[in-house]
């Protein structure tokens, strides 16, 4: 039965092995579900958050996850709007990752607000000045868009496509994909930005507060660009991770290199703007609010090294590596740089959220520390487990990487050639060898 | 022809459920603990005004339904023949037990409605909000919303939420509309506690 769900021509491990892979994740999912139940049914005291650390690890992870999930919109934008056809190889993967990231983020958000049943009031009585309203609206809409984008991937499952209506709907939907890509890009621009604005507007938190450009603080734009930089890198990293785990080639190297290049381009713009922004903040915004900027870095473990790491080590350096076409050829550099990009964005989100909350504002207050409780960690582990399971199922039962079939066959090439040179059913082995040569030279 | 009819039948069915069956299920009805005629008190025979019983204390707080002490001022012992008056005296006034009235216009705990501001300053009449309650002969059945726990009067007897009677419905929309019409500037906590 399981076999009939696997797309033809794709190599998938046995169902037993797949179960062995899934079961630990299911166990993690169960633990996470229990933690979520505790938070929802008994209250948020199960978390280690408090009135001072009103946002905990979840805000950092949510922001990170959404930045990393930006690959979905940015790849879609490049593929459908800018017509970069090579990205067809990863668009499905980007969409699935985006869906996982966004739905996971929304799920965690719903666990970590006190009264999730009232969350929809935001739509009914929106305060349009709040960044969170923008986030709520855009996130909800974009999640719908992602679901719509995910539908074709599911509908192309071997059994579902047997139902002609599904396949035809998939076909028609796919033709309209640029519309969704456009909307996705539009929405992503706003919510990635609003997530940046989330802390950037906090007048009461001079560490995060930034001057407004138009109606949004500068972090709005920085978040959009940094997300666009991180998204492709994350797609690159996850794809290669899937390749490692499945021991298959899924995507051609030039796709990786292209993703790296895109990431590098966005990152260098980001680093430039972030540097300008930081300088303005140090010299004008922060002292203007009565806080000399370097006082924020007075706590030893949160010193200026963070700023340096964020902008140079995890910003400038990977940007330069990714922009060098020579270094990009080397996979170690390529993925290494991609990893640094993602880490840099994580660090940025960490600084914007956790460090902001940890820093005192009142003159008699202290730097605060906070350690998440197991329930908070487990709630996030739930999302990771859910993501892995959803990705695994999609990978197993649908075609995430269109190049997989082709690359799978070129993988077989070597053994074929060996075979052809040895005893053969074919009467004219030389001819076959020549043909294979022709075949491979076309690559 | 036929598929069309099925659809229409469906629409009709849905509408009937929504308009008639649903309101019947939504509310839980209960009788008041005692028969009481406002008309007897306010009509020609009684001649009392609303504020004779529904008083405001010295700090300006509207006291709502009067306590049995108020009733006892006249009904320390039965002055008429009615069964309910006898019950009143026997079960409540003599043992000094409060009557567990069900309040039609009970707002949730977080709503604050100052009667003095509306009646004294705003020159509103009791009937503007409470309708002809003061001249009624019997107490209506009290309906409680099974989901929200509110009295039906908060939404209004008409399930559609629209009514030609001005006093029907006591939802926040109505407060906001009237305040808006009168150019009142309020904060949330002006009417929420």
């Amino acid at each position, binding site marked *: 039965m399981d076999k009939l769900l696997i797309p033809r021509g794709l190599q998938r491990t046995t169902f037993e092995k797949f179960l062995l892979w899934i079961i630990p994740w299911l166990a993690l999912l169960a633990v996470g579900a229990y933690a979520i139940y505790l938070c929802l049914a008994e*209250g*948020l*005291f199960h*978390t280690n*958050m*408090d*009135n*001072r650390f*009103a*946002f905990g690890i979840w805000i950092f992870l949510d922001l990170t996850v959404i930045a990393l999930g930006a690959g979905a919109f940015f790849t879609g934008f490049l593929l459908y709007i800018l017509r970069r056809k090579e990205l067809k190889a990863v668009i499905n993967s980007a969409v699935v990752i985006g869906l996982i990231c966004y739905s996971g983020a929304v799920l965690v958000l719903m666990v970590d*607000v*006190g*009264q999730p049943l009232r969350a929809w*009031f*935001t739509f*009914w*009585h*929106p*305060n349009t000045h*709040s*960044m*969170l*309203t923008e986030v*709520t609206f855009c996130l909800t809409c974009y999640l719908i868009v992602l679901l719509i984008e995910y539908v074709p991937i599911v509908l192309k499952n071997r059994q579902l496509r047997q139902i002609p209506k599904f396949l035809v709907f998939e076909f028609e939907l796919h033709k309209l994909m640029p519309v969704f890509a456009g909307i996705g890009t539009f929405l992503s621009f706003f919510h990635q930005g609003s997530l940046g604005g*989330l*802390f950037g*507007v*906090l*007048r*009461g938190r*001079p560490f995060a507060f930034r001057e407004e450009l138009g109606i949004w603080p500068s972090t709005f734009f920085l978040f959009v660009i940094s997300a666009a930089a991180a998204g492709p890198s994350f797609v690159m990293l996850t794809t290669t991770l899937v390749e490692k785990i499945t021991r298959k080639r899924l995507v051609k190297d030039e796709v990786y290199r292209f993703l790296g290049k895109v990431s590098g381009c966005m990152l260098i713009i980001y680093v430039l703007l972030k540097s300008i922004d930081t300088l303005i903040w140090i010299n004008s915004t922060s*002292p*203007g*609010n*009565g806080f000399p900027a370097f006082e924020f870095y007075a706590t030893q473990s949160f010193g200026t090294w963070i700023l340096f790491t964020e902008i140079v080590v995890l910003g400038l350096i990977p940007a330069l590596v990714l922009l060098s076409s020579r270094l990009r050829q080397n996979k170690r550099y390529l993925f290494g740089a991609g990893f640094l990009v993602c880490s840099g964005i994580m660090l940025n989100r960490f600084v914007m959220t956790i460090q902001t909350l940890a820093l005192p*504002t*009142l*003159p*008699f*207050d202290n730097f*605060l520390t906070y350690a998440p409780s197991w329930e908070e960690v487990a709630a996030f582990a739930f999302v990771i487990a859910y993501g892995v399971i959803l990705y695994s199922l999609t990978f197993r039962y649908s075609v995430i990487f269109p190049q997989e079939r082709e690359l799978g066959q070129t993988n077989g090439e070597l053994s074929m050639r060996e075979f052809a040179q040895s005893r053969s059913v074919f009467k004219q082995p030389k001819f076959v060898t020549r043909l294979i040569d022709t075949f491979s030279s076309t690559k | 022809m036929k598929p069309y009819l099925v659809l229409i039948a469906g629409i009709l069915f849905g509408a009937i459920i929504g308009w008639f069956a649903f309101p019947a299920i939504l509310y839980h009805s209960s009788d008041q603990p005692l028969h009481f005629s406002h008309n007897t008190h306010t009509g020609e025979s009684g001649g009392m005004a609303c504020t004779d019983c529904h008083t405001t204390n010295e*700090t*300006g*707080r509207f006291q709502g339904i009067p306590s049995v002490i108020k009733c006892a001022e006249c009904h320390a012992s039965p002055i008429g023949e009615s069964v309910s008056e006898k019950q009143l005296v026997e079960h409540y006034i003599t043992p000094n037990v409060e009557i567990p009235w069900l309040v039609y216009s009970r707002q949730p*705990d977080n709503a*604050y409605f*100052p009667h*003095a501001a509306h009646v*004294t*300053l*705003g020159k509103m009449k009791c009937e503007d909000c409470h309708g002809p309650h003061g001249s009624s002969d019997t107490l209506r059945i009290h309906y409680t919303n099974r989901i929200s726990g509110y009295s039906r009067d908060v939404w209004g007897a008409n399930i559609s939420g629209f009514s030609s009677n001005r006093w029907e419905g006591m939802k926040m929309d109505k407060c906001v509309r009237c305040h808006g019409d*009168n*150019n009142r500037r*309020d*904060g*949330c*906590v*002006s009417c*929420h*506690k």
Partner: protein
Amino acid sequence: MDTTVEKKYKFGMVINLDKCNGCGACAVACAIENNVPPAVQKMNKRNGLTWLTISTVSNNEQYPQSETVFVPMFCQQCEKETPCMTVCPQNAVDVDPTTGIVGQVPQRCLGCRYCMTACPYHARYFNWWDPEWTDGMKQQLNPDVAPRMRGVVEKCNFCHSRLHSAKDKAATLGNREINPADYIPACVESCPNKAITFGDLNDTTAPITSLASNSNSFRFLSRLGTEPKVYYHSKKHWVRAMAEKAQTRSRQADGIAEEEFHG
């Protein structure tokens, strides 16, 4: 129908830190007045419910030169750019245009706590637990303040229910303006040392107005530009220096505020 323009109040407080002895009467009176539940076992300074909290601030000298001052901290009722109000996604926070009081409607609140991260004074509190009272204490709740539920944010609103009562009392007499003596928040009333002065900052004759503009009065974080309406007062130099540590260059901003005050 009545269309008279309401009086514009600007309620504020001045807290004389020299008079505060950290007894906590204000915090307890506040909790009783506003139906704030007592702590559960795991509650502490960081996750408790204290609309009014009191910080113990030291001059950091060595014994016996060490000195302590108690700083009551609660919603500072920011007048401008009210940080919590602008961030609330569903309008659960607002600034009352007629009183300047920052209101919070817990029944609208979804508990996202964005306002708490926005508040520089950490004067907002989240119900991490279900509120717990003994059965008898439940009957002793103030009937004028709705109790909150788990998962929502709450904060000081200058004992708004007392303003309701004062307005009610005035309205009964046919007055639109309240008698200032009728509106005294619980903390002010309970302070055994009368360290807190409460009143209308728009009323130039009120004692609070001159006290607020006294040179020994200051506001915390005034450079943020949020125009808080709670002032602190101390003759002790180190206390003022402590408070102004982060606002050494804020004189100018304060000057403007004071001018507005008198004008």
